[in-house]
């Protein structure tokens, strides 16, 4: 193989293979790392700067509100047996935050994941491959910590690990039917190349320059009394084996050329000559490492959900006017917080583009919005969504507004900021996007807020988004439901049990109450409880004054 032109990159993320990392820069970094000149950051630097498939999604519009970074770090954490390798979260975050706008890419990824779920052997091979590349990463990036180590041995270990990786790729995925087959094609291509044969010869040369047959005489006490060399056979078939006199001349030649006069210097030159033929395949492995993390992270999410008794799925995509369903939808952020979330089933009519969600405080509305946003994001990323089954519509983007942060330098009051948020929403919202808004227009008096609310909802409808908006304007919502003057508007309410406690399920309709009193009672904000707190404080204050006097 002409190493200068890499005809195939084992891209597992895109239907059409892409060279996504900066090959030249990574190649330079790998050369430096191989020589022991740098330490750390090679893989993460390359992957975090990697280009990704074109996407219409803008991560700034939702990543913070959906706690995406935390989701990646905790839900996509890779666990292989007892080993938990350090993954490049920045790369994973970028991959998930910018789902491809090409449905073929999504299908490509789903096919791979489906095969990994169906074939335990395939998954085990992928995990083994990932661990090998992670070991390679460790050998490259921990040079600083291993200065006392023999440099040649480290390089040979790198080459040996590389060979193992290529062998695994070529052999373990030969029968794969999904995009995983690219690993086999890549491995086979490398294995049939001249640099690989040189690599195999070098490893053979390192392991067996010669074979010596010894005849040992063992005494009655079990100790060696005598030994004789029965035969010595040099591995003359190996391309690197030179006669002794040439090895000596080679050492002298290297000394004359400015190297040290030692056997290790000869080996160093041979190692470098083999490595230089494999630079580009090494670079390809860096990209491949990021791809494997994507799938193993997704499988890790699936494992965690299943461990909590929750099911995930690869949802079906439906047309714009088809009904959508999310059954067994749960909030993975709750799962990572140690709470087992209560899954809910949602069904949306095909014509409903905007859903108004009402219900009591702490009834799960905001959590539902997070779940919906994450489910859409993951579905379009081609990975498992936090639902048992799902039929989702393709979205051109996601805009989420769930967190109301007060900033020290904000120029507007709460209503002003609310209006700025609405303005920004319409500035960036493409047609067919998903919008999730929590408590729209809650920063002003209800009568004025309702007017703005109605304006926003009616305007949103023109872009035919999948909008999910929570509100406590219950009367207003009920009026909208009854009037039906805004087309495509649907209503969901938090279901309450007979004791009027939220079940964290959602049904069609508008809630009658926000159950603020219940929440206040649950959180200790009743008249009796507040009086008790006041008396307690007064008593404490008097006691302090007596002590001081």
């Amino acid at each position, binding site marked *: 193989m002409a190493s200068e032109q890499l005809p195939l990159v084992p891209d597992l993320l895109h239907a059409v293979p892409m060279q996504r990392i900066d090959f030249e820069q990574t190649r330079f970094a790998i050369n430096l790392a191989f020589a022991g000149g740098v330490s750390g950051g090679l893989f993460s630097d390359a992957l975090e700067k990697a280009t990704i498939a074109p996407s219409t999604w803008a991560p700034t519009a939702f990543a913070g509100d959906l706690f995406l970074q935390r989701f990646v770090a905790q839900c996509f954490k890779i666990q292989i047996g007892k080993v938990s390798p350090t993954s490049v979260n920045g790369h994973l975050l970028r991959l998930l935050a910018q789902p491809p706008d090409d449905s073929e890419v999504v299908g490509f990824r789903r096919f791979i994941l489906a095969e990994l779920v169906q074939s335990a052997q395939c998954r085990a091979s992928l995990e083994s491959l990932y661990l090998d590349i992670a070991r390679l990463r460790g050998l490259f990036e921990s040079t600083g910590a291993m200065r006392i180590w023999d440099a040649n041995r480290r390089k040979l270990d790198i080459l040996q690990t590389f060979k193992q990786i290529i062998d695994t790729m070529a052999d373990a995925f030969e029968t794969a039917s999904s995009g995983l087959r690219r690993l086999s094609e890549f491995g086979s291509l490398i294995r049939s190349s*001249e640099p690989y044969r040189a690599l195999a010869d070098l490893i053979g040369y390192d392991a067996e320059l010669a074979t010596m047959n010894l005849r040992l005489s063992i005494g009655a006490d079990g100790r060696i009394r005598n030994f004789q060399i029965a035969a010595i056979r040099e591995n003359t078939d190996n*391309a690197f084996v030179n006669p002794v006199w040439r090895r000596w001349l080679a050492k002298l030649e290297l*000394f004359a*050329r400015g190297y040290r006069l030692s056997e290790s210097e000869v080996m160093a030159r*041979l190692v470098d000559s*083999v490595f230089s033929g494999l630079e580009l395949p090494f670079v390809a492995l860096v990209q491949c490492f990021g791809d494997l993390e994507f799938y193993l992270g997704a499988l890790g999410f699936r494992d965690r959900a299943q461990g909590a008794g929750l099911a995930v799925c690869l949802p079906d995509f439906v047309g714009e006017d088809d009904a959508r369903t999310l059954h067994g939808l749960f909030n993975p952020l709750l799962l990572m917080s140690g709470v087992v979330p209560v899954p809910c089933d949602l069904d949306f009519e095909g014509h409903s583009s905007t859903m108004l969600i009402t219900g009591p405080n702490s009834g799960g509305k905001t959590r539902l919005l997070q779940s919906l946003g994450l489910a859409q994001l993951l579905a379009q990323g081609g990975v498992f969504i936090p639902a048992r089954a799902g039929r989702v519509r393709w979205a051109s983007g996601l805009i989420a507004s769930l967190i109301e942060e007060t900033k020290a330098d904000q120029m507007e009051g709460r209503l002003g900021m609310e209006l700025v948020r609405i303005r920004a929403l319409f500035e960036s919202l493409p047609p067919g996007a998903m919008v999730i808004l929590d408590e729209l227009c809650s920063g002003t008096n209800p009568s004025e807020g309702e007017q703005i609310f109605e304006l926003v909802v009616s305007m949103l409808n023109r872009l035919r988004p999948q909008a999910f908006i929570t509100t406590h304007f219950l009367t207003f919502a009920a009026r909208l439901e009854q009037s039906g003057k805004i087309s495509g508007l649907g209503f969901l309410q938090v279901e309450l049990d007979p004791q009027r406690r939220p079940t964290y399920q959602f049904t069609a309709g508008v809630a009658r109450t926000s159950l603020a009193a219940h929440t206040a009672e649950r959180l200790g904000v009743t008249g009796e409880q507040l009086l008790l707190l006041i008396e307690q404080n007064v008593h404490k204050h008097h006691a302090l004054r007596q002590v001081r006097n």
Partner: protein
Amino acid sequence: MPTFLTTRKMSPELAKRVRASVSGRRVDSKTRALPRLGSILRVGAVLAVIAVAALVVSNNRRANAEVARQRDTLLARVRAETADVTQQQLAIGRRVESLVADAAGVYAGDWVADELKGEDAFSKALGRQMVYVRGPLAKLGSPAGFKESAAESFKDAFSSCLLDPPTTRTERALSNKARAALGQRGAAPSSIERIQAALISLPLLLPEWQARVRSADVAELSKLAATLSKAPIGAAKRAMKADLLLLVIDEPGDTQGPTELDGERPHWVRVQMVQLATGAVQLRLRLRVDPSWISPSVRAEHASGIDSCALALDVRARVGASPTRHAAEGMQGPRATR
């Protein structure tokens, strides 16, 4: 640029990369001079090492050749020296030691072979090559004593007067002979050789010494060469080729009388002449010497020498070969007592 790291089994691509890994260091123009200089220095160092190694090898070869030459020279010299020496002659040391030990035993009585009797016969016998040993009876019986006596057996008044007797047997004539013999201690008469020369040089002529020469290193070889140079090989060979052993054994002296300043006192002396080849005794006499007749002024200095010279004259007289006149100046020397 070719390199010794490549092999014929390598693919052309790999060989190219190996060559590149050896020579393809990236250097910018600012630092290019330094590696080039370093490379030159290293090449110079390699050449210097090779030159030194070649010099060492060359010197070593030259030194080895010189050693071989020295060894060959030494061995050739030894071979030349031993070319005309028989194995029997090489065994003269043991032979003489054995004869001396026999003579130091019980005295077998006086005996003079017929072929020695008479002036002419005795002179003829004395003209044959002889080795001379003289020592006290107490020492000559043992190997160590023999070697000690052999080392101390120089030309003395006895051998001198035996071969070249004074014309008169006066005190003056005898003392002159004794004084002359004392002055020429190292030089034996032409027909008499010290056995000591043979004893010293014999080891150098034996095969064992040649084997030592063959295995010697430079330092050892020069020592061996010096030893051979100092050895009295000529005298040794003459001793080895001698026909006769002239042996003088001094029996213990009388204890009653005075002892002279040079240790001389009255005592019996055994004189023997033995054929070395056959061991046949040609002459065996037991004679007494007594310095008491010598005037006190001369006796103090030359009693032993005068006695020895007188002994020689007595021997000659006993074989009928001494026409020496007595009492030339009114003083008579002692007569041998039997």
